[in-house]
């Protein structure tokens, strides 16, 4: 049988893995990556997780371990991470035309028209090639739907017996076995509150939800959950931008009606995506630390020059304010835009989200900044309310003014090994 399959390739501890490619001495060492804007842990190696260090821990809490040499903290090097992410995507694109980045370190890949054995063999090749070509270790999960692919990926990561690659046919014993062992909270798009309501109905595992009658699920809960139930049965019905659970990243992108090389059109699209992303951010009460902007030419038009760049810009501080997000996105676009290419798609991804309510006060906080923040919150609330009442896009922000310099606190940032001639790694002869 050759049902269409979708693969999820997820990079292991991505930021730390990027650092380790160029610093082999970090292998096996507990490593944490710190945000430059507020000095909190935004990524951890497995060894650091094992020490019980949580995401969002402020650097100064860990200072003692650092001075004892027990752990290594590095400032985030988004330029490196952006480049390595683009490389991973390129390796996948050699294999499939259907590659969709879901975040900086996760990509969906279409596996269409192969039998099960071939799918498994190809998934293993992807696993090996990404690791060898880029140095980034990944796990690969493949299944008939995105929700199942997510679960397959999770199994590939957590269970050594899979060797990093898990293919679920969707209707076999393996799938059933895995779904029975999977708690609902670990299913893509099922939030904590929903888990409690489902438990009352006796639906506790992914298998229970799969077996529930989709129409009843829709009536008692929502269309979204009905889709999840169908996805667990192996029927693909969730597109990437669909699900509305609070997420760790927010992506807004769209294909242009026709190919365009006009900077002004790209700017308009990026502006729209950035604002829409910021709205989603506020709706789920998160702040973003960084903004990724990407452009794509049409791969199927080999007669046209191909250029699909992406870039990450870090925000001055974690924020849900449309203005700095828009400013960062526009600057990022200008940095990657080149004339002479006709782009098919543009998008904005908001990265490294942090809960707005739990956010640590930065050491740089002063009463003035707190007042600024409050003003910004009021402004954004008004903006969202107007757009809700009067229709999306009623109030939009103009092109942001160019702004003053911001000094990043990136004292421990590693060199930008792959993107700056002056910072190449050295090899001893």
């Amino acid at each position, binding site marked *: 049988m050759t049902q269409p399959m979708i693969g999820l390739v997820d990079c292991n501890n991505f930021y730390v893995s990027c650092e380790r490619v160029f610093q082999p*001495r970090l292998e096996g060492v507990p490593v944490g990556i710190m945000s430059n804007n507020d000095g909190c842990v935004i990524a951890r190696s497995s060894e650091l997780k094992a020490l019980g260090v949580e995401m969002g821990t402020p650097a100064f809490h860990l200072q003692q371990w650092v001075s004892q040499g027990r752990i290594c903290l590095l400032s985030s090097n988004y330029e490196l991470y*952006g480049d390595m992410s683009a490389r991973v995507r390129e390796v996948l694109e050699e294999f499939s035309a259907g590659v969709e980045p879901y975040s900086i370190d996760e990509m969906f890949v279409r596996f269409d028209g192969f039998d099960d054995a071939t799918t498994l063999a190809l998934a293993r090749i992807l696993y090996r090639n990404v690791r060898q070509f880029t140095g980034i270790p990944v796990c690969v999960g493949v299944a008939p739907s995105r929700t199942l692919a997510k679960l397959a990926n999770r199994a590939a990561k957590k269970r050594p017996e899979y060797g990093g690659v898990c293919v679920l046919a969707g209707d076999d014993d393996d799938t059933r076995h895995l779904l029975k062992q999977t708690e609902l909270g670990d299913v893509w798009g099922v939030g904590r509150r929903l888990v409690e309501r489902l438990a009352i109905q006796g639906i506790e595992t992914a298998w229970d939800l799969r077996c529930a009658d989709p129409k009843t699920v829709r009536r008692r809960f929502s269309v979204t959950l009905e889709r999840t139930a169908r996805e667990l049965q192996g029927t693909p019905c969730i597109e990437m931008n669909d699900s509305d659970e609070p997420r760790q990243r927010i992506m807004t992108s769209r294909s242009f009606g026709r190919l365009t090389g006009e900077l002004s059109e790209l700017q308009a699209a990026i502006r729209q995506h950035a604002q829409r992303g910021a709205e989603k951010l506020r709706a789920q009460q998160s702040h973003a630390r960084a903004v990724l902007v990407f452009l794509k030419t049409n791969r199927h038009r080999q007669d046209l*020059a191909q250029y699909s760049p992406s*870039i990450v810009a870090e925000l001055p501080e974690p924020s849900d304010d449309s203005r700095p997000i828009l400013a960062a996105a526009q600057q990022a676009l200008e*940095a990657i835009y080149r004339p002479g290419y006709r782009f098919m798609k543009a998008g904005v991804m908001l990265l490294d989200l942090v809960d707005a309510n739990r956010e640590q006060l930065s050491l740089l906080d002063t009463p003035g900044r707190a007042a600024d923040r409050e003003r910004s919150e009021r402004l954004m609330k008004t903006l969202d309310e107007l757009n809700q009442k009067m229709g999306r896009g009623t109030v939009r922000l103009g092109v942001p003014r160019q702004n003053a310099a911001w000094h990043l606190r990136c004292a421990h940032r590693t060199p930008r090994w*792959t993107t700056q001639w002056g910072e*190449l790694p050295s090899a*001893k002869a």
Partner: protein
Amino acid sequence: MRASEIFQAHPTPPAQGLPHPQTAIRAGISGFPSPAEDYVGRTLDLNQRLVKRPSATFFMTVTGDSMEGVGIQDGDTLVVDRSVDAKPGHILVALVDGEVIVKRYELLGKRPYLCSGNDRYAPIPVSDLDCQVWGVVRSVIHEFPV
């Protein structure tokens, strides 16, 4: 509002080609295309020549003189391709005891060695080392002071 720092994150900016001299761009009087037309607008791109697989290609700077015998000098830039499987005779970037080194991979007898291109350094038997291949060197860029 403050500017956030912009990070250039893509490895392959659009090719910066060398324009060929545009000699004759019009067709001959007879209406037959001029042979020179083939060359119009064509450019040479060093990326195309040196970077066979962009996703797997990394640049590194050489430090030290142990590889001078094979034409790799201190300060040169290595073009390293991780997608190539290492074979005897290749110049490798390898991780040895946590250090990144460049050596030639050779079989002496039937045993693998990392060899230098300089008589002052003896071949190192791979079996004695904690050794991993990082990538294969495809070319070396040596720039002269001008």
